[in-house]
């Protein structure tokens, strides 16, 4: 019966794209099965940039291993090192000072801002709208400069350390003022961009009802993060994280699950991130930013889930003689691959890359962290 169904599906040709393709920022492979330029089936293969970060982490001292996790991804480097620190802090019962928690939240939300801006810019580039892409990169520069100011580096800022944040990331009055000004500037520019974006009929025509992922499919395919929220599911791990308890923010959801919904989810999430950063700056408590009074001990396997720009990030490892054992990392893009394949089906081949990009893939960090299991 199944064979008969498969035979009924007319697939005229296969168009393999990648592993190197100009529209893809990263190396991955897409096989598009088409019928008169309409995608009937799709297959995404990752794993060409495997570096086995988890394997390298095995046996390293936990501080070194934490630093290494930052190198998994150039976009969400802070998320990885933060979650890795959270694993050890949970396992070793390390209490993080309140001020350090606030600085960590500021860094994480700024990372969400720059990640979403990058996503929006890349989405517009794939749409062929270079002017919007350039405009978004221009707005993103503010947050990149602020990250550079706090962390000393625009990309790998390495703010969290075990028990707090690096002394380099302390926020004095001058930095706080710059943060406030930066948030005002970005909010103004983002609002202006959003107005222009949604009122452009040509752009709306390209992104409405394209790459649709229904709510049912999103749940079936185990999507996560903004990709899931854009289908109308109110799911944000930040609402369950104690680090976010002091902050008020809305979980952004959109109806439709198409490219438009995905893009707008990120636009509104950026506005929420600005709101959270403002609250953190306003209520920033006094006190130390590092707790150094903790002792190393052997711990069982400890897990930590956090909400990062692309969804739920999972880190887990055990500690033995101060060294990392049985490390497993699962990036959110891994969960969204099924949705990317699904979103291409039924749409024109020119929209295939857009349908993949709408899920905000980060295949390179997925590849680096993926665990190869011998069968």
């Amino acid at each position, binding site marked *: 019966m199944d064979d008969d169904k498969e035979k009924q599906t007319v697939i005229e040709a*296969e168009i393999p794209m990648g592993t190197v393709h100009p529209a893809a920022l990263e190396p991955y492979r897409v096989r598009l099965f088409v019928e008169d330029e309409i995608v009937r089936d799709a297959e995404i*293969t990752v794993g060409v940039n495997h570096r086995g970060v988890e394997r390298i982490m095995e046996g390293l001292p936990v501080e070194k291993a934490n630093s290494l996790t930052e190198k998994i991804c150039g976009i969400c480097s802070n998320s990885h090192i933060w979650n890795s620190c959270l694993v050890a802090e949970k396992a070793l019962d390390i209490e993080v000072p309140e001020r350090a928690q606030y600085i960590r939240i500021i860094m994480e939300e700024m990372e969400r801002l720059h990640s979403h801006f990058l996503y929006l810019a890349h989405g517009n580039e794939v749409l062929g*709208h270079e002017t919007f892409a350039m405009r978004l990169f221009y707005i993103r520069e503010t947050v990149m400069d602020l990250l550079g100011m706090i962390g000393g580096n625009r990309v790998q800022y390495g703010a969290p350390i075990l028990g707090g944040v690096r002394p380099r990331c302390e926020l004095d009055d001058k930095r706080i003022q710059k943060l406030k000004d930066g948030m005002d500037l970005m909010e103004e520019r983002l609002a202006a961009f959003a107005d222009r974006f949604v009122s452009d009929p040509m752009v709306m025509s390209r992104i409405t009802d394209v790459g649709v992922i229904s709510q049912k499919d999103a749940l079936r395919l185990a999507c996560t993060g903004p990709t899931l929220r854009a289908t109308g599911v109110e799911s944000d791990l930040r609402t369950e994280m104690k680090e976010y308890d002091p902050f008020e923010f809305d979980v952004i959801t959109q109806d439709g699950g198409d490219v438009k919904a995905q893009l707008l989810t990120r636009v509104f999430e950026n506005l929420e991130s600005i709101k959270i950063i403002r609250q953190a700056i306003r209520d920033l408590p006094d006190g130390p930013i590092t707790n150094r009074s903790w002792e190393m001990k052997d711990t069982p396997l400890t897990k930590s889930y956090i909400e990062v720009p692309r969804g739920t990030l999972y880190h887990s490892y055990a500690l033995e003689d101060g060294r990392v054992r049985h490390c497993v990392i699962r990036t959110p893009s891994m969960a969204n691959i099924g949705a990317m394949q699904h979103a291409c089906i039924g749409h024109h081949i020119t*929209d295939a890359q857009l349908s993949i990009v709408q899920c905000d893939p980060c295949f390179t960090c997925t590849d680096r962290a993926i665990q190869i299991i011998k069968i």
Partner: protein
Amino acid sequence: MNITYSLIGVIGTLVVAFIVSLLLPGIERKFIHARIQQRVGPPITSPGVMAPLKFFFKQTIDPNSPMPKLYNALPLISLIVVLILLVILIPEMYFLGAFASVIAIIGFLKVEEIMYMFMGSLSKSVLSVRMPFPDMAKGAKHPETPRTFVEELSALRAFRLIAFGSFPIYIALFVSVAVTGSIYLSDIVAYQQQNGPILFTVAGILGAVVFFIGYMILLNEYPFAILKTKADVIEGPYLEYAAKYRSYVYLTRGFLMFVLASLFATLFLGIAPNILNPSFIITLVVALLFPMLMAVMSAFSPIFTYKQFYPTVAAVSILGVLAIVAAFL
């Protein structure tokens, strides 16, 4: 004396056209795209002059094509076709009779369009190479499916462009024919010298709009760049051109920009390209204005898929038909 005068006119016009066409891509990218996008942009000579020059001295890589010599010859043939197009627009060549007519121009433009189809179907780049695993392994999705190349896809699109996409420019060419009642360029120019430019009539205005959209489609410029879309077919028919052959591609595009603008000046303003005529300056202004307008439009629009492309072409074609009707009224 007359022959010498004519030769100076033809050769001088070609030389000036060539120099201006080298600068047009730079003007488009530096002064329009870069300014709109609030960035510095490349040096003005970079896209049109330095890039072709650089490619001339690069190592030629043989394309993966069933007929590599023909594939490599196609850009040069394109360049020659565009050169002929300009030559027949020059008043000194109007003695060629039917060769200096709108029908001949349409024929040469069709040859130019067909080249994209040949280019696409003769190219098989490494970008679409199949991998033994997981594409053909047991358990792979649809392992028996025949593979196609992104360039073949662009060849298919070139066919659609010939069949449908280039309607606007051909309809716009016939606006002048409808107004003047002649297919000969000499008559069209003479009519406008006596009665004023067609552009300043209702039919002319509508025709100019249609011509401009057709100009963008023929040049494969955003948002009508279905032949070379970065999101799927990338460079499309040009994908495998390397070294001097890629240089010819760049030169042809720049030259086509100038030639189409000259064609507009001839058909809608009655000013044929001739360096010995002071009104040649208007041809140059049109040649500059068209890429600038095109750059503004492309900077503010996303790339079209068929969903947007077909209705746009249909609407513009209807506008062109209305222009022809207005010409008869």
